[in-house]
């Protein structure tokens, strides 16, 4: 009780210190007074982000492949406020910051975050450009815990925790920048036949099968999810430009694609026909290939327009950019180091 009183008084005095007032310090008990002297000094505590940013400016980090695992398709979130998004993915999903470079004005030019076994990249918008939030399917061992944590970190719910007919327990959130995060734990393998029965309201109830792994076979923690107007055309593009192969396709009402999964290199990409609140949401991607020239040319032949032709980048990549018909941007790169 006495300590609680001291804790509250310490906090009130810190409020005063932070507001630039220092009254009442002399009257405090010795223990409190000593802590307040420290608190007074901490008012000038340097911001660790500033320290790290200045270090990166002075001694640019050696360019290296930040993670050993290859990931062909990396979702790239472009927002106004990347530093805050970095904080969010750390707070919400326990992401690790693997690499970050700032522009001279302090905005984030490029950052790589890891979530589980996967990468997500992000950057601040450049002047005059608009943000490109994305949708990301996140498989985690404990969806309930992570969904709650995401809400506490500032996300808003766009889909409550639900046992889905396709065998996942899932909750969806949107962060302050408009990115969608579909958080899921796989809990049951559902056959296509059973799934159709469930959609028709005739199948068994979703249930948790303790023998099932929380990530479905072939999935990493992060899978980009494209909501696209013209899903068939998008699939055709992915296949012609990047050699995507179909893993799964679930038709919905009126023949529209309710959900499809494609493999590009070692990565999966999911997509669905845009509808209702899941409207078109073009995204940016970093695509790692063996021959950026060849894939860039293939993408143009498949109907993309060039953003820039492949060229050597100062950070050890040979990269070109294209925009597909659905306005997704693909930055096609070959690591040159």
């Amino acid at each position: 009780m006495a300590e609680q009183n001291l804790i509250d008084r310490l906090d009130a005095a810190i409020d005063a210190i932070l507001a630039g007032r220092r009254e009442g310090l002399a009257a405090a008990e010795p223990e409190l007074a000593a802590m307040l002297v420290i608190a007074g000094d901490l008012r000038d505590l340097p911001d660790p982000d500033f320290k790290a940013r200045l270090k990166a400016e002075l001694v640019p980090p050696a360019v290296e492949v930040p993670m050993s695992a290859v990931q062909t398709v990396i979702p790239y979130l472009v927002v106004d406020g990347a530093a805050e998004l970095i904080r969010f993915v750390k707070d919400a999903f326990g992401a690790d910051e693997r690499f970050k470079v700032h522009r001279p004005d302090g905005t984030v030019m490029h950052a790589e975050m890891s979530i589980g076994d996967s990468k997500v990249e992000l950057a601040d918008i450049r002047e005059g450009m608009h943000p490109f939030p994305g949708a990301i399917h996140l498989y985690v061992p404990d969806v309930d815990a992570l969904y709650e944590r995401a809400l506490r970190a500032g996300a808003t719910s766009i889909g409550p925790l639900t046992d889905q007919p396709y065998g996942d327990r899932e909750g969806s959130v949107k962060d302050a920048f408009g990115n969608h995060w579909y958080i899921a734990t796989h809990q049951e393998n559902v056959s296509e036949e059973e799934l159709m029965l469930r959609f028709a309201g005739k199948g068994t109830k979703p249930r948790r099968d303790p023998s099932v792994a929380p990530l479905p076979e072939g999935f990493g923690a992060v899978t980009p999810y494209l909501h696209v107007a013209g899903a068939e055309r998008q699939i055709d593009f992915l296949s012609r430009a990047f050699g995507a192969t179909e893993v799964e396709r679930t038709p919905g009402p009126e023949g529209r694609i309710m959900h499809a999964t494609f493999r590009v290199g070692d990565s999966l990409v999911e997509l669905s026909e845009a509808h209702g609140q899941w409207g078109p949401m073009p995204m940016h991607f970093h695509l790692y290939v063996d021959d950026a020239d060849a894939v860039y040319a293939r993408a143009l032949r498949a109907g993309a327009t060039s953003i820039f032709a492949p060229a050597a980048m100062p950070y050890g990549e040979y990269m070109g950019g294209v925009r597909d018909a659905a306005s997704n941007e693909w930055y096609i790169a070959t690591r040159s180091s």
Partner: protein
Amino acid sequence: METALTEERDRIEAAQRDPARFADLYELHFDRIYAFVVSRVRDRSEAQDLTSEVFHQALANLKKFEWRGIPFAAWLYRIAANAIADHFQRSARERDRPVDAAEPASEEIERIEQRATLFRLVESLPQDQRRVLVMRFAEERSIRDIAHLLGRSEGAVKQLQWRGLQTLRGRVGQNHG
């Protein structure tokens, strides 16, 4: 003392040969230079700009630094004092502020070093205590804001703040005792 000076000399020579090695010198001296600058300008954003200027100048002029047994910190303090003087000259027309742009005297250095030690001690705190203190002091967030971000109760955050300061108090004592 002898060893410390030799180590410092090695570090400087390494950075003179390869600017990437400047990172070691930066890590060693960041806190004291920041503590000095902020004690003079009393404004976080100005302190950051000036600290940045000091280290950029130091890196640009590193090749000119000649080892004569003068601590590298003294060289950095001189660059910082000059940067502060220039800063006050530039802003004197806009504001009426007392000008203190001299190099720090030994008493002041002692005080700066104590603060720099304190800043480094924050980095050695247990993660949850460090996080709360950084958010509270460096980011100037309210208890409510921190509680919300960390998903803890306001009472728990206040307790972490208390424990963090208590730990620091103990460690500062050890450092000076």
